[in-house]
């Protein structure tokens, strides 16, 4: 027996047991535990070494945590605000990633924290499932299913025929092929439009829509024809409403679709789409379709991307705090007047923010109470603020002194 073989290394099973234990204790984030799991396996470790590693990591993690009492909000505001001032000087708009423009920089950052309902450049990154992500042809099929195709885009002409009292659509063969539709489908879709447009007849690539006459009417009313004309021209034949354009791009080994305009709900229902990775940059849309946690993550990602793109290094935890604040109620709230600042529970804090007198009068009319829990309130009345050393209560009991 040599001495080397006597040394006992921990087996993977033992490491695993240790990690499970660690997770139960709930003192380390899952991500760190996962990283430990990945890295620990390859090394020959003794039990003592394993314990030491875990102890050191736990200690390092504990030391990296923010201490209770820290003014994290103020620090976050400054840490995002200062780089923000540099952004203004640099650029407002930035030419797009591919062929369409994307709002970036300060305007986009403002859009995110304002939680706008209609972002100026909504886009989606649509990832494809295994069947469709490899070949261009397959990807195009999916793209055709997503991109909205309206009659106008596939017709040579759309005209009002006054003599017949109908709308004549002359479809273009090449355009239709390009979009993956045919005349039959167009006729069918026009027939299915509700409220009913009228009688739809098709002769090869010519479609005629004849609105029905109402009782007592002799001839077709011009205004009604015009209305029907607009409806026919804009009728959705294929794709998802709102998706104006789709680009196919190669991203590493796979093909990805980039869209101008979003309709996440519709796209997720489309065949060939990888629903686990497809995302939109429209925060409200994400919150509606995927839930508030997903929206929080999108806020973080989008804000981080904007800052990274400008070469500004902002710690992600500041952004996470903002995202948490915006989504904590389960709904998206903007930072500012109509959101977080305007909804503070303290009257004094709200009065300090905006339209002071109105808030104070309103509060006194309905007999509001203020528990003086926040910072602003205590500043106003001239007390020590509950932050940092001010947040700590001490008790002294001389008799309890331990003799040692």
């Amino acid at each position: 027996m040599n001495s080397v073989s006597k040394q006992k290394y921990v087996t993977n099973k033992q490491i695993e047991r240790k990690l499970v234990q660690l997770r139960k204790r709930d003192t380390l984030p899952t991500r760190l535990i996962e990283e430990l799991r990945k890295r620990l396996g390859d090394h020959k470790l003794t039990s003592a070494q394993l314990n030491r590693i875990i102890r050191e990591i736990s200690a390092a993690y504990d030391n990296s945590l923010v201490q209770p009492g820290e003014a994290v909000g103020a620090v976050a505001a400054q840490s995002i605000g200062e780089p923000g001032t540099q952004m203004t000087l640099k650029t407002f708009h930035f030419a797009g990633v591919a062929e369409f423009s994307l709002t970036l920089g300060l305007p986009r950052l403002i859009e995110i924290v304002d939680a706008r309902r209609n972002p100026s450049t909504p886009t989606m990154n649509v990832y494809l499932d295994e069947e469709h992500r490899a070949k261009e042809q397959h990807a195009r099929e999916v793209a055709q299913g997503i991109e909205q195709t309206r009659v106008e885009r596939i017709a040579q002409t759309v005209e009002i025929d006054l003599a017949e009292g109908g709308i004549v659509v002359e479809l273009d063969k090449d355009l239709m092929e390009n979009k993956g539709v045919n005349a039959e489908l167009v006729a069918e879709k026009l027939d299915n439009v509700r409220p009913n447009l009228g009688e739809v007849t098709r002769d090869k690539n010519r479609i005629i829509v004849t609105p029905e006459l109402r009782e007592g009417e002799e001839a077709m009313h011009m205004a009604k024809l015009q209305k029907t004309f607009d409806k026919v021209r804009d009728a959705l034949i294929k794709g998802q409403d709102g998706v104006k354009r789709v680009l196919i791009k190669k991203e590493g080994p796979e093909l990805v679709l980039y869209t101008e305009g979003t309709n996440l709900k519709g796209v997720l229902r489309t065949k060939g789409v990888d629903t686990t990775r497809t995302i939109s940059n429209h925060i409200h849309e994400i919150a509606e379709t995927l839930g508030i946690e997903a929206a929080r993550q999108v806020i973080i990602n989008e804000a981080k991307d904007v800052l990274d793109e400008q070469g500004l290094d902002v710690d992600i935890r500041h952004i996470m705090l903002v995202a948490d604040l915006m989504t904590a109620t389960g709904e998206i709230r903007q930072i500012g007047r109509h959101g977080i600042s305007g909804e503070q529970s303290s009257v004094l804090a709200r009065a300090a923010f905006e339209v002071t007198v109105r808030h104070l009068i309103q509060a006194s009319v309905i007999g509001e109470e203020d528990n003086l829990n926040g910072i602003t309130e205590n500043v106003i009345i001239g007390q020590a603020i509950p932050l940092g050393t001010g947040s700590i209560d001490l008790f002294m009991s001389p008799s309890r002194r331990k003799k040692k």
Partner: protein
Amino acid sequence: MPKKGPKIGPKRMTRYEKSRVVGARALQISMGAPILTRIDANLHDPIRIAELELLKRVLPITIRRKLPSGAFEDVALVDLLD
């Protein structure tokens, strides 16, 4: 098994707790409170004296750690020193 520690907050004293304790104690000392440990005769700065008392674990002080919910825990100062 993990060591027993406070249920609320970190195992060790935060920087704010330390400042608060030293500050409060230094004020007492500056106003003539009896000093609880043996100190060098040349030491006159109340803040330094308070720090020394803290390190020597002689301060009979309790910190009330509160949560926003209103729940709190009273932690003896010595339990936060390691």
